[in-house]
């Protein structure tokens, strides 16, 4: 028999007043390089415009690109103190973003599998990414981008145990 007691909303655990674990400080540099490389791809259409005799539109595009890059850089610094994860008894919470803030909760019972990954840039900074997969498709998956290797492994171990028992 499944017990199904009514839940008092005010007594529920609150996710907004949690202690969040921050990433190591060097993730700022990591993001600066990573995001700049990403932004460089956006420059391709501008370059094409410039060489196809549209220097005026290309100039506007370049201006917009600089603006975008500045916002991205400010965002990286501003969000550092907000970006982080919190573990609770039944779920993991991850939050990020300054201009676009978001926070996602995945109950351990819904986790399908986890993955540790290190790209070339990751390795340069000795950072490890932890990916958490659910059955909810790619938008529902969670990537925690830069953790100490030790920490990532411990976190993964913890999650795997929890999700097996949930």
């Amino acid at each position, binding site marked *: 028999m499944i017990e199904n007691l009514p839940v008092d*909303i005010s007594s*529920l655990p609150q996710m907004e007043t949690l202690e969040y674990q921050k990433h190591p400080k060097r993730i700022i540099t990591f993001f600066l390089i990573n995001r700049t490389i990403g932004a460089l791809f956006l420059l391709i259409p501008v370059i094409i415009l410039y060489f196809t005799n549209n220097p005026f539109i290309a100039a506007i595009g370049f201006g917009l690109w600089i603006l975008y890059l500045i916002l991205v850089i400010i965002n990286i610094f501003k969000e550092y103190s907000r970006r982080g994860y919190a573990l609770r008894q039944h779920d993991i919470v991850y939050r990020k973003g300054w201009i676009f803030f*978001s926070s*996602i909760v995945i*109950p351990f019972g819904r986790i399908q599998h986890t993955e540790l990954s290190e790209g070339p840039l990751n390795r340069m900074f000795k950072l490890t990414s932890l990916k958490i997969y659910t*059955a*909810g498709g790619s938008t*529902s998956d969670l990537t925690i981008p830069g953790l100490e290797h030790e920490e990532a492994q411990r976190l993964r171990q913890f999650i795997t145990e929890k999700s097996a028992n949930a």
Partner: protein
Amino acid sequence: MSEFSQPQRQSAMGFVIYIGRNIRTIISLLLSFFAFGALQSIAFIFIGLLVILGVIVVLIFSYLQYEFFTFQIENDELIVNEGVVFRERKVIPFHRIQTVHLHQNLLQRITQLVGVKVDTAGSKGKELEIPALRRKKAEALRDLLREKSTQTITDEKIALEGQASTADDQNQEQQQLVKLHLGNLFVLGITENHLRSGFLAMAFVFGYFQQYADFVQKYIQPKVEAFLPEGSEVNIPLILGAIIVFLMGSILISMIRVILKFYGFEARLIENFIQIQSGLLRRNQYRIPSKKVQFIELHTNFIRRRLGFATAKIYQAQSASSDTNQSLEIPACYAHHQQAIKQHLYSGIIEAPTINVKADAIAYLRFGALMGLLPMPFLIWAAIDLSFYLYIPVAIFYLYVLYSSWRYGKTVTVSINEEMLIISRGWLFPSTIIIPMYKAQSLAISQNIFLKRRKLAHFIIHTASGRRSVRFLPEAIVYELINYQLAKVELYRGELM
């Protein structure tokens, strides 16, 4: 030993099915050959030779495809060998089988053959099709696969045994839900969203003829232009005429679409399944196990709401590759049908919502005002270039965007009761989404800095059949929604899919 334990070919008429498929894949190629030939004035004999060559290749290839396709059942696995150039062996263990369904397209109906499609959970490209079996054999295979695939899951076994005790009720539990007659189809067709059908058709036609753009320009355009009046002045009768033709065409397309899709539609509620079959040229039969259903969505429009019916979309958990038909539709659901579906899927746990929360309508208005500005530079530029009077429709368009986003915002409501999350919204096209809270895979809140200042946020729920979000809810409410649902997810101990 079953009749499938030996490797075997499909019905001999399967040859014809493969011919049909191959012709369909190369028809586009053939057409472009013709267009190209007409353009370059290459001798028709040459094209004729190409066509004959093509036909011979198709015939041989189809025969080989038929010849090389074998299937069998061995050691609780379905094994299919196929491929002409690259031989491929697909093995699907029974416990991985998610759904098995039968379908028939026009050619399959003429040859009286049935296709069997087997879908598995997870990995891409892991579904397989046996396209040409005699009806009896197809049904036997389906039943065998279904039986075997449920046997391997112990939890399901228990559920089946539990039901055996109430076997007497089972026969009565098979209940016809919706059956559509021609009259229903007509009502459905006439109340479709014609503008959408029209634009979809236009997009399709443009997309298709883009390939033959050169041909169209050279041969068809001069002929069309001869009919058009001189000059490029805005011509009111011409525009009106075009609009009327567009509308008539759209209605016609809606009708045809509805009839093709829903001819002979029948939905049944059986034990713990929903069974749906429909289609004029291509007949499909689906069975969805109730526990695989992640959520349902009721769509309607302002006319259909007057008439009192909606389309129920049923979203089920499926493998990543087949996201095209993740939802199944049951059109023409009147209130009592909707009630029956809810009862069937969520028996006992559907009650009147206890808490209703409205989204911030002004935030929707603000958002609409901003989004409506995006196409403005282009529209204004067009107005400068063409005619001053175009400002009037541009202004009307903007006002409409403002008004409709405000009306839309006023309708957005999130309701919860013990077990269900109910999202209802839409002004001209209202929809209601009913999600059992425990089906959530993950939950999220998002907001930008402007919303943060106004203490508003978006709420996002991910399920195994896609995500749904509600924009512009009060921030505190979103956190409460998430906390409450998490508690529900953690309390739930049953099966998800």
